[in-house]
């Protein structure tokens, strides 16, 4: 379950401790979830190029704690274009403003026809207790290669040259029948494995893993409509100089 810093584009695999203590590159604490198979944009331009000058200077000079408070206070209305890297392939061309952002909801809306039916099935299906392990979510995804979605976890996937293979995968999967696909159960299991604290079934519909929510030291304080979320990072992860609780 990869995540990407909305500030500088740095990517983090699921369970990354670097991400949990704030982005080591820019100190940001907003991360966008990118589902398996989603293309990561190439490394973004330096954030200063896209950021409003005041935002980057605040982030740099006042530090992480202030950034966090500011993000929280203003968190309801993030500027979707403020600190997000360019999309190299220009695939989402339906909306000039949102074209650079790919998130779970937007992907479904813009590429709904091309979505893997098995994935759609798994997305809308309900996870039974046996499908959702209570503890110890694996942070590795070695099995991904068998499901035809290797791009997101591949270390080389941040290169724009990986886009064509991803498109090939989509074509292949779409062309296969879905209901009898032997990979369906496997794919569904993988998706369920990725279901951590909060699963967005569709806008306004959520499934929650209470044990995960309870087990996390940080907690999700704001879900954004576009699939982003803001987490509160515990003080001890940031440093002794922060006291904002």
């Amino acid at each position, binding site marked *: 379950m990869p995540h990407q810093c909305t500030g500088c584009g740095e990517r983090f695999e699921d369970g990354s401790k670097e991400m949990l203590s704030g982005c080591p590159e820019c100190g940001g604490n907003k991360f966008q979830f990118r589902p398996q198979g989603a293309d990561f944009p190439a490394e973004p331009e330096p954030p200063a190029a896209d950021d409003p000058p005041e935002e980057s200077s605040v982030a740099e000079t006042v530090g992480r704690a202030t950034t966090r408070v500011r993000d929280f206070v203003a968190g309801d209305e993030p500027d979707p274009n403020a600190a997000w890297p360019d999309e190299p392939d220009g695939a989402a061309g339906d909306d000039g403003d949102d074209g650079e952002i790919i998130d779970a909801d937007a992907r479904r809306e813009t590429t709904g026809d091309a979505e893997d039916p098995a994935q759609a099935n798994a997305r809308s299906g309900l996870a039974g207790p046996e499908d959702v392990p209570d503890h110890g979510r694996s942070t590795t995804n070695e099995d991904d290669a068998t499901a035809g979605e290797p791009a997101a976890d591949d270390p080389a996937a941040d290169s724009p040259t990986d886009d064509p293979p991803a498109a090939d995968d989509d074509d292949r999967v779409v062309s296969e029948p879905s209901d009898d696909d032997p990979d369906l159960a496997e794919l569904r299991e993988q998706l369920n494995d990725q279901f951590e604290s909060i699963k967005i079934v569709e806008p306004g*519909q959520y499934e929650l893993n*209470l044990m995960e929510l309870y087990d996390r030291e940080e907690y999700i304080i704001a879900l954004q409509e576009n699939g982003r979320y803001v987490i509160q990072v515990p003080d001890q992860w940031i440093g002794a100089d922060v006291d904002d609780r």
Partner: protein
Amino acid sequence: MGLLTDLRSSISRATSSLFAGSEPKRIGIYGPPNAGKTTLANRIARDWTGDAVGPESHVPHETRRARRKENVEIKRNGKSVTIDVVDTPGVTTKVDYKEFLEHDIEEEDAVRRSREATEGVAEAMHWLREDVDGVIYVLDATEDPFTQVNTMLVGIIESQDLPVLIFANKIDLEEASVQRVSNAFPQHETVPLSALEGDNMDEVYDTIAEHFG
């Protein structure tokens, strides 16, 4: 605004600890949506401070942020116990905006409420992990208590070794079954009450003072 509330509470706790011998115990009111948690919190707060905690509603997930009433002093049998009452959003494993549509809420508003309710559950679980000293677990006595959420939450509370009381609420309704609730959690004391009607509140306060004092 959980963070700001935290800030404020840290300051007020630090201040109050300067003048008082010990901090009030923070008692979280937990339970599934529409069990009557806010009604109970308001009943307690009104009885002992004159204030209310938050709006009550038949619409589920009306409480989407934890709300706290501090320094509620309950006097029982010549002694007094001071607690902070934390009313938490109803905990559930699924939030669906369509639930709100049944209550004549527009779709856009329903989706927003759904998102806020989800955030509320996350907040409630976070509080349970770090910020409560005891739990009042409120159940609607007209509903089946044997649910995954109830079992999981009570299990978590037990694993934390937090003192817990089970409140079987809504006994003013005919179909309420206190026995069913106490059968579900025989390891804990179950107190029947109607927070709405104020039934059996004397026993409620006696038990709170006894367990959390």
